């Protein structure tokens, strides 16, 4: 049943092309809600025991002479990712409610990204997996290049070329896997023993390809530029789910297929990830553009995911998966506030300009949302960010105690740049202009719309629910992670 998330979303994209433009946003909203609903139903109904293994749900021969199957499967990790995809997708549509310029096209590309993400998270056949993975790249280019803002064509091209560069490495890795093992089935490959010499060079190729999309330092520079150039919906999807494709794939494919290669290279991944956490946080501290602050914070938070994966113990990896969920929600929320709630009304994202506007008075709901999002992002207990990062740190303590100390510095920096952005944008002491925000737009647009409120509430609810009761997800993630090969 969960496979229908993919079909419904593709069907929605096709429907968009067939129906006149007035229905576009409703078709998209209903499609994404249906996807989320399917995810929630599967989450509630599937017994936890069934989620411990990558259980096949659909398997149909596709190209029999080459051994390709249309093969979907699910376990706790996949289900968590499907859930966050649904949540991000629904809130993204709500925050794009007022897109008027080439509306149908916009929602078409958006649904393609979402459908591709569902596909990646559910694929159990390497060819199918890679097809979905590459499918996500193209719509991103159009979303950014057509509908973006600052320097959009440059940002879009940079992001696409980085993604495709990573895709090229992944392609090479997948070919090596396929040719050596003669199979594309992920469950079979997880049993196959590749010779260690092969693993030692094939693993870094494959993992690096995925890690480009996850924003690993020093190949992260596409992320801030792309996030800033993208329209709000693009940034939300990009930071919310697309970056997770990289880390999910690294876990599901690279680490599971080449466990010995992973053993050899894990400390290097950890080192790059730790550098990424501290470096991106330090850079974020110096940014003037609010979206750049959030873009770099995304890189920093994705560093946690990579550290978690590199710990190679159940706790750390589970924490990484939890962090993927958590950051998916929080990043979407942050970009929604910066790109949509503020920029649409003030037409600036410059922190210094925002500081003069006394926005907490003018836009109380936006201020409230941003406080929640910042708190979650800094890792205040009670929000999902804390639950995820503490799990990762405990896991990392067992493997890389020194890394934990350095990450501690990074966390202080995170708190510093988040608070700086929060204070400058909403709670500045500077009172240059009193009263409401002065903009050239229609005053009717000033109040926060219902759609925006719904979207923000959905995201805040998700981060709070998981923050207060992380067992909700961890119970499903942990057994699935423990069943993976590289832990044994």
């Amino acid at each position, binding site marked *: 049943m969960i496979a229908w998330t993919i079909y419904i979303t593709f069907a929605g994209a096709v429907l968009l092309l067939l129906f006149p433009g007035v229905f576009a946003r409703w078709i998209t909203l209903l499609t994404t809600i249906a996807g989320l609903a399917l995810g929630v139903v599967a989450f509630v109904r599937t017994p936890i025991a069934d989620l411990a293994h990558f259980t096949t749900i659909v398997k149909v021969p596709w190209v029999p002479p080459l051994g390709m199957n249309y093969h979907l499967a699910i376990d706790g990790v996949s289900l968590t990712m499907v859930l966050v995809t649904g949540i991000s997708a629904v809130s993204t549509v709500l925050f794009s409610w007022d897109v008027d310029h080439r509306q149908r096209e916009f929602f078409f590309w958006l649904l393609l990204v979402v459908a591709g993400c569902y596909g990646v998270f559910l694929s159990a056949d390497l060819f199918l997996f890679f097809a*979905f993975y590459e*499918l996500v790249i193209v719509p991103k280019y159009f979303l950014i290049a057509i509908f973006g803002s600052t320097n959009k064509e440059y940002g879009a091209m940079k992001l696409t070329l980085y993604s495709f560069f990573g895709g090229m490495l992944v392609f090479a890795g997948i*070919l090596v896997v396929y040719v050596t093992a003669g199979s594309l089935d992920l469950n079979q490959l997880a049993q196959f023993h590749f010779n260690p010499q092969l693993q030692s060079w094939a693993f870094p190729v494959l993992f690096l390809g995925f890690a480009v999309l996850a924003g690993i330092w020093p190949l992260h520079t596409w992320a801030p530029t792309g996030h800033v150039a993208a329209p709000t919906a693009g940034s939300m999807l990009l930071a919310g789910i697309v970056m997770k494709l990289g880390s999910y794939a690294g876990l599901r494919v690279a680490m599971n297929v080449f466990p010995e290669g992973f053993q050899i290279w894990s400390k290097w991944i950890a080192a790059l990830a730790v550098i990424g956490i501290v470096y991106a946080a330090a850079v974020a501290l110096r940014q003037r553009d609010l979206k750049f602050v959030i873009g770099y914070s995304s890189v920093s938070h994705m560093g946690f995911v990579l550290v978690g994966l590199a710990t190679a113990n159940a706790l750390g990896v589970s924490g990484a998966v939890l962090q993927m969920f958590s950051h998916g929600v929080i990043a979407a929320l942050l970009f929604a506030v910066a790109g949509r709630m503020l920029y649409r009304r003030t037409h600036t994202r410059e922190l210094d300009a925002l500081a003069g506007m006394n926005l907490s008075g003018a836009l109380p709901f936006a201020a409230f949302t941003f406080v929640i999002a910042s708190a979650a992002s800094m890792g205040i207990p009670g929000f999902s960010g804390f639950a995820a990062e503490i799990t990762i740190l405990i896991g990392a303590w067992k493997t890389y105690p020194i890394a934990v100390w350095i990450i501690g510095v990074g966390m202080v920096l995170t708190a510093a740049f988040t608070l700086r952005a929060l204070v400058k944008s909403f709670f500045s002491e500077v009172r240059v202009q009193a009263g409401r925000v002065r903009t050239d737009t229609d005053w009717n647009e000033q109040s926060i719309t219902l759609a925006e409120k719904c979207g923000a509430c959905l995201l805040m609810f998700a981060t709070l629910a998981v923050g207060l009761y992380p067992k909700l997800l961890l119970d499903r993630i942990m057994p699935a992670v423990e069943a993976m090969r590289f832990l044994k």
Partner: protein
Amino acid sequence: MRSPASTMSYLELLKLALPEVIVVISALVVLAIGLTGRQRTAVAGVSSAKPPTKAAGTAAAATDWCSLAAALGVGIAIAAVLMLPRNASLFSGMLVITPLTSLFKIICLVLAFFTVCLARSEKSLRHPGEYLTIILLATVGLMLLVGSEELLMIFIGLELLGLSLYVMAAFDKTDVRSAEAGLKYFLFGSTSSAFTLFGISLIYGMSGSTGLAAISEKLVAAPAQPLLATGIIMTLIGFAFKIAAAPFHLWAPDAYQGAPIPSAAFIASGSKVASFVVLGKIVLVGFGPVHGSSAWHAMAAGWSPILAALAALSILIGNLVALAQTNVRRLLAYSAVAHAGYTLLGLVAGGRDGFSATLFYATVYAITLVGAFGVVAVVRSETGGDDVKNFSGLAARAPLLAGCMAIFMFSLAGIPPLAGFFGKFYLFSAALRAGGDHGLLWLVGLALFGSFVSLYYYLIVLKAIFVDQPSASAPPRDHVSSDLLQRRAVAALAGIVLLLGIMPDILAARILAAMS
């Protein structure tokens, strides 16, 4: 002395060569219709100079009849191919019928059909009857090439195809670029034909036979000799020219850019597919024993390192030079060089897997390029040019065409779920498997790098179509020409590319089955 083959009755020959005969007959019919149509137009033009619309109307009607006759002939020929026996051979391999040759005759005929559709809408052709006749004759050349396992017959097919294509490239007498395209294509083409013929003569001298199977038997016994190597290299050079592999690609940019668009489409599609079929047969069947090895650690002399070098050079030169192009047709030409490089990978790998991967990729590539040229034709007739900037704002003017062009470009770049993606996967995996211990990883890695680079220039075209605002000189929205046939043909080709991407088994399984 009567050889046993010559006792074969002419009726038998007629039966087995029926598709070719049908195409030749329809070519003659088209020529006749075209001539009578022209006479009537001329008479109408002289006798009543006042209503020129009537004369134009008669000319258009003649074009329609010619196209209809040509399309009909191609259709009947496809039906005739389907009715051929499964396996047959005449005159020791001069005319061979196997499931594989039948499949590729159909594919060549389908490509010819779509070329006829493009030609029907091409305004710059003054004598459509003659033009369509030449397309059909070129198609006969393709079918002879595909359906022969004998070097002399292959050479005759090559010449028939080549001579037709030279005329097609130079057909637009009003355009100096077309003349340039024709002349360049002719000079390079005839030189390379000379190379091929010389190579064939050397091989004949060494092996005493022109049949591929007989050559193969002789080569097993004979040790490698310099003369044989010369023969093989010369033959390969001729084919490298036909498939536009670097460094024998220099004619391609001018031919693609200057020739009338249906000619360019046919040169890029039908001619390519047939050449790859024949090249594959020659190297894998005829030269099979001197395969050599192009694996990184175990290079061994043979034709495979030569093809590997051609492939590597084509991928590098094609992709890097394409980056700098501003004209879409020229860009497609350089990308064609790169794609010839990828396609050669399957032949370098050899074996049933590699050959079928090559054929799958060549077919998909041909279909894609005919479609892409169809879009270029529409844009050219609307804006008067085919530079990248002429494409700007196409998405707003003609969303369907823009969508089709996106499908073609992404298929060429190898983005799923399009046919080009599966083709690349199939090709690269076959090459990697054949090398033994990842010996061909160097070539596959280069090809992957090439397709990474290629995404940039395909995206530049798509950026113009989807992102850029239409330039001031672009026609207003209502100026869209109402040429439905062309648009339908393009949409159908886009549909095929998408379908072959989602269900590649339709074609891949057929090719594999035809080869066993």
